[in-house]
């Protein structure tokens, strides 16, 4: 009985709504270990035709071909993408926005925090705006948010936070410089969005 109840007691109550969590002081951790820069263009047109005619193998080959086509489109922007400090841009914007409103205290160190907001960076890059015939792409950024208590137990989340840029254009219009500027602006905007979700929870 003891062996059964011990791990159960260690589990924290996970809140469905962020409002149910009383945050006294917050630490922010940005996790970029799983981030992946992508161009999503050909992959958006993926249909079931290959699967219908050639089964799972056909679908896999078709999917790989689309991914390879998109990878080739991403290649010119890869050096710029690799140099973008997304982690820092998101974290700085998030902390600055929280500090400006002063409704949630930022902890001096993670050890002092009642809660830790974990922001995991997922896929990001350029995605086609809509189905064809639209050929414009726009920068996008996917984040996964979760909140841990002082003992590191998840109390809220994971929740996905998707951000898109206001700028859409043909892929060729995204030079390394314009792409860098757009992604920097989007990362800062995403950081503000996350902070605003906490402030106005």
């Amino acid at each position, binding site marked *: 009985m003891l062996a059964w109840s011990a791990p159960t007691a260690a589990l924290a109550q996970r809140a469905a709504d962020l409002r149910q969590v009383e945050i006294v002081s917050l630490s922010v951790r940005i996790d970029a270990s799983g981030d992946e820069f992508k161009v999503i263009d050909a992959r958006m047109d993926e*249909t079931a035709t290959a699967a*219908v005619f050639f089964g799972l193998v056909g679908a896999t080959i078709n999917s790989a071909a689309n991914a390879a086509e998109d990878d080739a489109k991403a290649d010119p922007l890869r050096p710029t993408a690799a140099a973008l400090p997304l982690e820092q841009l998101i974290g700085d914007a998030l902390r600055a926005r929280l500090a400006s409103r002063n409704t949630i205290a930022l902890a001096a160190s993670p050890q002092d925090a009642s809660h830790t907001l974990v922001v995991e960076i997922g896929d990001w890059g350029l995605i086609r705006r809509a189905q064809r015939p639209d050929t414009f792409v726009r920068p996008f950024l996917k984040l996964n948010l979760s909140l841990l208590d002082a003992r590191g137990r998840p109390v809220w989340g994971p929740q996905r936070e*998707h951000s898109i840029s206001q700028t859409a254009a043909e892929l060729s219009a995204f030079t390394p410089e314009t792409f860098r500027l757009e992604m920097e602006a989007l990362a800062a905007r995403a950081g*503000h969005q996350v902070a*605003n979700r906490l402030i*106005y929870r």
Partner: protein
Amino acid sequence: MLKVVSALMLAGSLAACATGTTNLTLAAPQARPGVLSEAPATTLDVPAIRDARQNQTRIGDKRNGYGMVMGAVGTTQPPAATVEAAIEGIVAANNHVLGGESARYALQSTLNTFWFDYRTGLVSVEFFGTVNAEVALIDRTTGAALYTETVEGYYSERTGGGLSQTWTRIMNGALADFATKLGNSEGLKEAIAATHAAPAAPAAADAAPTS
């Protein structure tokens, strides 16, 4: 015999479910105050939303295991009306006043995407919904768009499976995310606040450059 009839009825109900149109009854989210509440109270009209979706007959497809479209997912109310209600809710929840056609400022929107979809994995299904609209703050005295923003709400869940109840939850989640993002728009807040700024004093005639 009973088993055969039961099996036939189950197969029939599943086939109908997969091939017909399932209409979801969606609800505008309960709006909460956000960044827009930081702007001074302003009277804003929310006129009917222009529906610019590529396919206006459905909000999603029902596909079989091979991905072939078998049926449609629709809504009992036009999606534009639900999004309009969501925007009205955000205006009111942020201490602004819903005005009529005579209001000087309007939040004019174009609905671009209202789509439910899913990806089937080996042991789970990921459902996701997207609501995307361009929202513009219009000054009706000049017809000028003072601010324009594309707002996209997104919601996803990975579960073992689900039917209309799950699909409704997904689309309501996307609507809620759309409303939250609009309510937390810093650009729109600044544009609304700017409508209260005192107009700049006209330049004195003798200050004009002369050639």
